[in-house]
């Protein structure tokens, strides 16, 4: 019983991390029509930045959550630079943009290897959330519950931002019809930078808050990128709800697969993607992009 319960909590926790990662991926895809292949690298970069800040230099460490936010802001800045300096030059050439993001992801991976070395860095769980919560006879690891709460809070904040604010309305307009959005005076190119930085920041934040569970190691980027891809193929591009549901499904399948069929865990992920591709190619909550 406890085994299954823990597995379920782990699945939802992982789903929450995946949501933080894939929400930005999905928004970038929806707005700019490109899969951002640096997304896994940005996740890893956030984890490395955060870990360095949290572990500190000669004992001058920073609080875990401050480190996570500062790391996320740094990664958002990196994302904005990538968009401004490189992707902007290739406006309208989707293939070229994808290839550039791929090239940058290799460069970031190698720079991380250079800067932080090949050994995994483990980040301690923030002390205030260590240990377990007991509800009756059931035991829950607190930090994982915190991650779920953070993911849900971010999901609600993102939804409010997209649904209720002027910026959100402009982003939705840009996703639905970039030409018309331009015609009515929305500076879509500025939205590109904002959304790219936002997506990058979310990915970096996810990397750091996931680090006590996943630890930080070279190759984290290529472990996470396919998961984000599968989530978005499953949930549909440009849809927040799609990323959320897709992340939860993948989180559950991935964790149960790991526990029950470790050799085929990666392969089992493929099944829901296969079903969706065959039955509903635009994804569960996606619309057919023009």
């Amino acid at each position, binding site marked *: 019983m406890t085994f299954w319960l823990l597995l379920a909590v782990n699945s939802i926790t992982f789903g929450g991390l995946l949501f933080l990662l894939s929400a930005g991926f999905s928004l970038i895809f929806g707005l700019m029509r490109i899969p951002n292949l640096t997304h896994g690298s940005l996740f890893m970069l956030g984890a490395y930045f955060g870990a360095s800040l949290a572990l500190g230099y000669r004992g001058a460490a920073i609080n875990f959550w401050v480190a996570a936010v500062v790391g996320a802001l740094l990664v958002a800045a990196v994302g904005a630079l990538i968009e401004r300096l490189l992707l902007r030059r290739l406006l309208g050439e989707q293939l*070229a943009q994808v290839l550039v993001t*791929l090239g940058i992801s290799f460069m970031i991976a190698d720079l991380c290897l250079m800067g932080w070395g090949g050994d995994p860095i483990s980040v301690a769980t923030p002390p205030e959330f260590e240990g377990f919560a007991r509800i009756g006879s059931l035991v829950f690891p607190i930090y994982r519950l915190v991650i779920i709460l953070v993911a849900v809070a971010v999901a609600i904040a993102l939804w409010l931002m997209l649904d209720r604010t002027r910026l959100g309305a402009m982003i939705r307009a840009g996703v639905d019809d970039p030409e018309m959005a331009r015609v009515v005076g929305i500076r879509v190119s500025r939205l590109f930078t904002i959304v790219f930085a936002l997506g990058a920041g979310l990915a970096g934040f996810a990397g750091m808050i996931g680090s006590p569970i996943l630890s930080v190691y070279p190759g984290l980027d290529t472990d996470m990128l396919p998961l984000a891809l599968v989530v978005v193929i499953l949930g549909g591009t440009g849809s927040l709800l799609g990323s959320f549901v897709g992340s939860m499904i993948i989180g559950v399948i991935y964790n149960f697969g790991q526990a029950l069929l470790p050799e*085929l*865990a990666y392969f089992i992920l493929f099944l829901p993607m296969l079903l969706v591709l065959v039955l509903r190619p635009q994804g569960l909550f996606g619309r057919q992009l023009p």
Partner: protein
Amino acid sequence: MMRSATRMRSWRLLALGLALAGIPYGLPGSYYVNVASQILLYAIFALGLSVLVGYAGLVSLGHAGLFGLACYGVAYLLAAGHGHSIAIVTSLAIAILGTAVFAALSLRTTGIGFIMITLALGEILWGLAYRWISITNGDNGINVASRPSPFGLSLASAGQFYYATLLMFLLAVAAVSMFVHSPLGAALRGTRDQPRRMNALGYHVWMIRFWACLFSGLLTAIAGILFVYYNQFISPQTLALTSSAEVLLMVISGGASTLLGPIVGAALVVTVKNVVSAYIERWNFMLGAIFVAIVLLMPEGLVPGTARLWRSAARALRGRSDLPAAVGRTDPQ
């Protein structure tokens, strides 16, 4: 005219073959012959991918998975005690079957969707190679004890293996050249440029793309089998996204929709990789940087890009020499 063009192509191919056949005599040691073998086998791989990228307009980021499927097929069957011919034929069949599944899934979309799905499929194959330890031996990989000796000819030495690779390379070049100039190749280019019109003209666009995928998969599998015999070892690293990106870089850097482009690209990438790895460890950084530079500076690839520069340089030179004659003449345009 058609026939003379074909004959011209065969002459060129023959000349290329003769020039390449002399390489083991011109190179100082077996290390260089091995690099030449690598270039040729990667050229086969790149030609296979260029069928999709250049002529079908479908960019695959999962081809290393198909390549690895053929490699693991051979290695697993040999380790299980089967002979070389059974291992080669069966793994070709497995790789083509894998390509068919791969194509059936990814051809539901084109463009960016195709890239995403092939990337995800490639990563899944990598994950299988990495995790399905009872079949693939995981990170430790599988050793291949010996190379085959077709018709009693040993392929053990670097030079012998080079000639086997060269033979397959020339066959691959001839096959791609025939494919590109065949009606199917023309139809494939049509589906790249005007899929709707091709559909309206009665072509089965999906089927044409599917055949292109299978052809690409066949070449990829052949390259994979050569690769596993060349290294006599296979590990999940061969299936990683980096490998897919490397071969895509070969195709794009050389020029995707030319016959020569992928070959030049393979030579460039393999040479740079061998040279760079000898001096610094940062091959992945270089790979990424070359990618970004090529896409930003010479998006059409080196072969068409150089041809363009050459033409405009020649025009500039010619223009300067007949400048006096041109003075006073009104340009019709």
